[in-house]
């Protein structure tokens, strides 16, 4: 089973700052890491490879430094990496990114499955995975929390939805985006690091991929950041306080009443 995994390099989130004027993130001096949610896609990809054999290719679109993220994925157990990079991609939104990734994937023959994380922790859109599937006209399943069964033609997977799970049978090749529940990412090993160090990462750009340049970069992106605002928290908390030992049971009574009124405890079905 040959697998393609889409990853993104993101700023380490505890240090993110925004440029209020341009509405984009300030990435200077901030450590870049693999989007934490992509690690679950990498892990589940490696598990599938361990079970069914095959090869894993990790792809990212980003600046030259994003090579580091690909190497990290290889050190975890992926086989190859492809970096899509060049000035023409700068400022690409999710649509332009999906377009470029899809065209690059068209060049890779013989894949059965594409995996991606649920969303990136910086942009938070969750659009690129579905976007790529749409450009490639592939079956798509998002929020996958478990791979149940894999056969030659299909993959059966559990999809996390708000009030439970859906079981889907998806024809291969397909694109799945996965959620945290699916796996526990492994750590890179020393042997993996050594292998990654030796692995050459090819850089693809408009020179290698057939791309319409007018559909790339900031200019080719339909998305416009009009304004950046900060959401205001409108919730109000209530603190139920007991002032002394005697008032404890009365206080608990008030708390119980609140829980009842708000119907916070549901009876089992």
């Amino acid at each position, binding site marked *: 089973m040959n697998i393609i995994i889409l990853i993104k390099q993101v700023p*380490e989130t505890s240090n993110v700052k925004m440029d209020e004027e341009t509405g984009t993130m300030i990435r200077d001096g901030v450590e870049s890491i693999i989007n934490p949610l992509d690690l679950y896609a990498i892990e589940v990809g490696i598990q599938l490879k361990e079970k069914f054999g095959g090869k894993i290719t990790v792809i990212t679109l980003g600046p030259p430094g994003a090579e580091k993220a690909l190497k990290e994925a290889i050190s975890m157990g992926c086989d190859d990496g492809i970096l899509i990079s060049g000035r023409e991609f700068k400022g690409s939104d999710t649509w332009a990114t999906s377009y470029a990734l899809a065209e690059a994937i068209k060049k890779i023959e013989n894949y059965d499955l594409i995996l991606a994380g649920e969303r990136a922790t910086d942009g938070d859109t969750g659009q690129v995975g579905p976007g790529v599937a749409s450009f490639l006209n592939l079956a798509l399943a998002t929020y996958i929390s478990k791979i149940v069964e894999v056969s030659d033609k299909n993959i059966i997977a559990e999809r996390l939805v708000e009030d439970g799970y859906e079981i889907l049978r998806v024809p291969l090749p397909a694109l799945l985006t996965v959620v945290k529940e699916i796996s526990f990412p492994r*750590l890179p090993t020393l042997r993996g*690091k050594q292998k990654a160090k030796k692995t050459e990462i090819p850089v693809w750009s408009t020179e290698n991929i057939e791309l319409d340049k007018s559909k790339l970069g900031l200019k080719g992106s339909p998305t416009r950041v009009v304004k950046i605002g900060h959401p205001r928290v409108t919730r109000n908390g209530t603190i139920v306080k007991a002032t002394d030992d005697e008032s404890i049971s009365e206080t608990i009574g008030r708390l119980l009443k609140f829980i009842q009124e708000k119907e916070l405890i549901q009876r089992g079905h």
Partner: protein
Amino acid sequence: MKYNPVTNKIIAKLVKIVDSKNVLTDKEKIEAYSHDEMPREQYAHMPEAVVTPETAEEIAEIVKLANKELIPVTPRGAGSGLSGGAIPVFGGIVISVEKMNKILEIDYENMVMVLEPGVVTNDVNELIAERNLFYAGYPMSLETCFIGGNVAENAGGGKAIKYGVTGRYILGLEIVTPAGEIIQLGGKLVKDVVGYNIKQLIVGSEGTLGIVTKVIVKLSPLPKYKVDLLVLFKDVKSAISMVPQILTKTGITPTSIEFMDKLSVQTSCRYLNEHLPYQKAGAMLLIEVDGNREDHVSDDAETIGELCLKNGAIEVYVADNYTTQERIWSVRRNIAEAFKVVSPHQSLEDIVVPIAYIPDLMPELALISKKYDIQIPCYGHAGDGNLHATLVKNPRSTMKEWYEIEAKSLKELYESARELGGTISGEHGIGSKRKDFMEIAVSKNELDLMRRIKKAFDPNDIMNPGKIFDME
């Protein structure tokens, strides 16, 4: 009792010195000042009053009053100690420096910082990181502890192999002596040999010789890169015997070598819901190297990793970015917390031996564990010989039995460390907890000399009495 109580008259005088908002006598409020991070029911003692002064002058006035009236004074930082240093064992007045938390000066030209004692040590590093500087003396309990407490305990921590402990970075101090004088010691000087080195005598004196009111710390350039290795071994012996080898054979001084036995790793991983393959490892080492060149740091990590693999390591994991580094360090950092969930009754120890003898210490721990039928998870700063062997109460024992077992097993643990040329505490201090064991660690002559020094500073024995040793 040789001390006098804190009467209403004394309270009125305290209010006059620091204002009523800085004097606490409410039982509920002062309860928080009766304990540190050790089990409360065993070690806590209520103060009679707590004051939160804002200046050295106020502290000097309070201490003068206490000295005149023979009232014990206990200085207190963040209360994150593990030896009872901040517990007012004779009641009296607790002087908490929590309101003296200003950063007075950042002197980039001289690479020093002047701090009030209540500054949270971790905040210092967050503040100067963007100037590519750091204070290298910070201990493991980094998120809460105060610099004043670090000085009083001469705190160590996980980076001591390369960077040493608190004392190395203290260039100057201002203290209030037990007589209530304000004295400046040292300054912004790297070298200073004028007279006795009283500044370093204060460092690690556990608040028995005076109260630190100002600290001048040395800053160091922040290394740009670090790589961590998490190395899995089949058993404790193969992990521990690796430590002296790494230190003597690679030509590399790692920033830290932390050891974790199976029980420690399992307990922490379960607590964190971390799915590292801990089941297959009998023990682990967490090794960190740092430096300014990415390739050098990565080469150093590789050299150490290869040496471990050559000596039977099961697996070597490499963490060279924030995500993976946080993941593996959080296993190490959460061990103590995880054990508190398992059993609140335990004795967290910090014995230390010369690095070459760490392997010899481990069988001793196993013997004590077997003899008294208690678990002794062991983890800690193996790279500097400082191990957190922790005695955990067997759930089957009653509290009375546990206290007896604890006292006996502690004595044997300390004696084992001593026999290997080590000592009973590497970084937590003696405080009230270990003072009965001082004779295992130091000679009678040395102890007498310490008493004479204490007497010279504090003739009335009002400054943090009942700590380190008794006066007679």
